[in-house]
Structures are given as C-alpha cells and as structure tokens.
C-alpha cells in the first residue's frame, strides 16, 4: 500500500490547526478580568476535575463494561497498576517529592509487569 504523502501532510496540518483552535478558544473569547462569573466559578474547580478524570482514565481498564460485565484485566496486571499507584499517592503525601514518587511507582510497576 502506498501512502499519499501530501494527503498525510494536509491531515497533520489540519489536526494541528484544530488542536490549536481548541487550546486558544478560551483565551480569544475572554480577555483578562472579563471572565463571566459562572465560568470563573467553573475554572476554580477545573484542575481538580481534570486531574481526577485523568487518573480515572489511567485505570479505566480495571472496570468491567457491557456487554460482558466481566473483568478483562488479569489480576496480576491489575495489581501492577493499583499497587504502584497507591505507592505514588502515599510517597507524595508523605515526602512531597514528585520525582521520588514517580520514579518509585514506575520502577515498582515495571518490576511487577515483568513478574506477571
């Protein structure tokens, strides 16, 4: 199969413009100090919401879904996701050193992934 390189380039450019438009929209719509109160209320809650959703998104594979409603992740794989995650949270709450929390959790995950 041959790939039309110009079509690929045009698609990448389009994807770039769409992404930039998404990122720039709030800045173009609302100049500084002119944020409507309702959006100001929302933006205060956005970082907690986004972080919670991003963490949830990292663990979505553990939740059984329709149509089978069964666990699709093997227990050892699930443990290799959950235990290092808990370690990251505990280390961060305890020491507050992001690098330590992330390196420790990632090494544990890599070790557990190889055992399983």
């Amino acid at each position, binding site marked *: *199969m041959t*790939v039309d*390189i110009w*079509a*690929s*380039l045009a*698609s*990448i*450019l*389009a*994807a*770039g413009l*769409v*992404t*930039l438009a*998404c*990122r720039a*929209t*709030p*800045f173009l719509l*609302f100049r*500084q100090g002119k*944020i409507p109160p309702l*959006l100001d*209320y929302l*933006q*205060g*809650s*956005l*970082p*907690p*919401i*986004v*972080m*919670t*959703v*991003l*963490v*949830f*998104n*990292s*663990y*979505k*594979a553990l*939740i059984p*879904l329709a149509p089978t409603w069964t666990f699709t992740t093997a227990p050892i794989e699930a443990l*290799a996701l959950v235990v*290092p995650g808990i370690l*990251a*949270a505990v280390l*961060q*709450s305890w020491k507050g050193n992001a*690098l330590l*929390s*992330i*390196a420790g*959790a*990632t090494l544990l995950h*890599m070790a557990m*992934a190889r055992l399983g």
Partner: protein
Amino acid sequence: MTRSALVRFAFRTTIPVLLGYSTIGLAYGLLLATSGLPWWLAPLSSLVVYAGAAQFMAIPLLAGGAGIVEVAVLTFLVNARHLVYGLSLIKPFGEVRKARPYLIYALTDETYGLLTTVNPPEGASKARFFTLVSAFDQSYWVIGSLVGALAGSLVPASWTTGLDFALTALFIVLLVEQIRSVRRPAPYLVAIGASLVALLLAGPDRLLVVAIVLAMAGMLALKPLLRKATGGGSDAQAGGGSE
C-alpha cells in the same frame, strides 16, 4: 533568582514529564515508522499537532488513507477538553506578553497540570518559568518521537515495557497536590461520578471529553447547593477564584 537557577528549577519541575514524554514519544515514533509512514512525519507531527492522544489516533488514519475531514473531526473529539483548560490559565497568562501564543499552542495535559500546580520560586519571572516548562516538555516529546521513529525496531520493546506508567504516576502526584491546595470534596466526587457515567455511556475511548463535560455540568447543577453548604470559612477563599 538567577536565570540559570530558574532554568534548573524549571528542568527539575519537568523531570516527571521527561520520563513520560520521552518514552511515550519513543513509542509513538516507533509505531508511526513501522506502520508504513515515512519516519519524519513523527517529529513533524509532534511539532505541528503536539497532542499525544490525537497523534496516536491519527497513525492508522494516515496509514489507511483517511480523509482530511475525518482526521480533523476525530482530532477535535479527542482534544475538545482543551476548550476548557485555558479558562484556569487566563489570569496567570495575563501577565505574559510575548510568549503567550507559544504557551497556548503548547498547552498539553501534562503542561497544564504543571502550570496550574507548581508555583515559580519567589521573585522569578512567571512568564519565563511558564515558557521554560512548556519548552522543556515539548522538547522531550519531539526528541522522543524523532528517536523512536529513527530507531525503528532496533531497541527490543521488552526494555521499555511499563515505563509509560510514569505518566499515570505523574497524574496521581498532581492529583495529590490538587487535593492539598483545593480542599473542597465536591469537584473530586463529581469528577469520579462523571467518569463512571462517561465510561458506561460513552465507552472508554471518549471518556476524557465526556467525563470533563459531565463534571462541569455537575458542578454547575450543584452550584446553589455548594454555596449554601460552604457559606464562609476557609472555602470562601477557594471559591473566590484566588487560585
């Protein structure tokens, strides 16, 4: 604070992203180069698009000869969450002049997380700190995808298995830091509920966008209730937009 001290501080801030972006960027480059596309599309896409999920999603589309409209629509669906990210940065970015367009263009999930969570040191230029963090993050992504695309299949995949967990750990760390600074349970609980509903209704592929939209709708619906419940006290500060 001297310029080089700020560069070091910004670099240390981005080390978790370095671990995540370089490995995931590497995986992206590898995947693109082994899917029949020319290797240089990987670093080019990392420069032009600079949105991980959208770039991964685009690989089979580009390789399969999908139309430009299909790529654009799917990119919009994956990246629609960015429509709201900027809302929390309008005020912080207000002090930034020249670098503003770059900061907006380079606002990924992880950079958003760092910029809304980590404060620059006392007396340091906010604009310079933001720019350094954003540029460090993007350099990891571009270089990672370049190396991955060039390396092809030279490096055994077994070496890097699991290294991408660094991004999950980063999100957990950022969540812990959010819990420390925004001490209201509502946004977290609403976000968990919204994620569950989004997963069940929209499925795992569209979870990010749908969950964030649902959570915002939930916060709006709960607004009168939360006002009454929190009243004054310590929450008045958090609700007053001081973040």
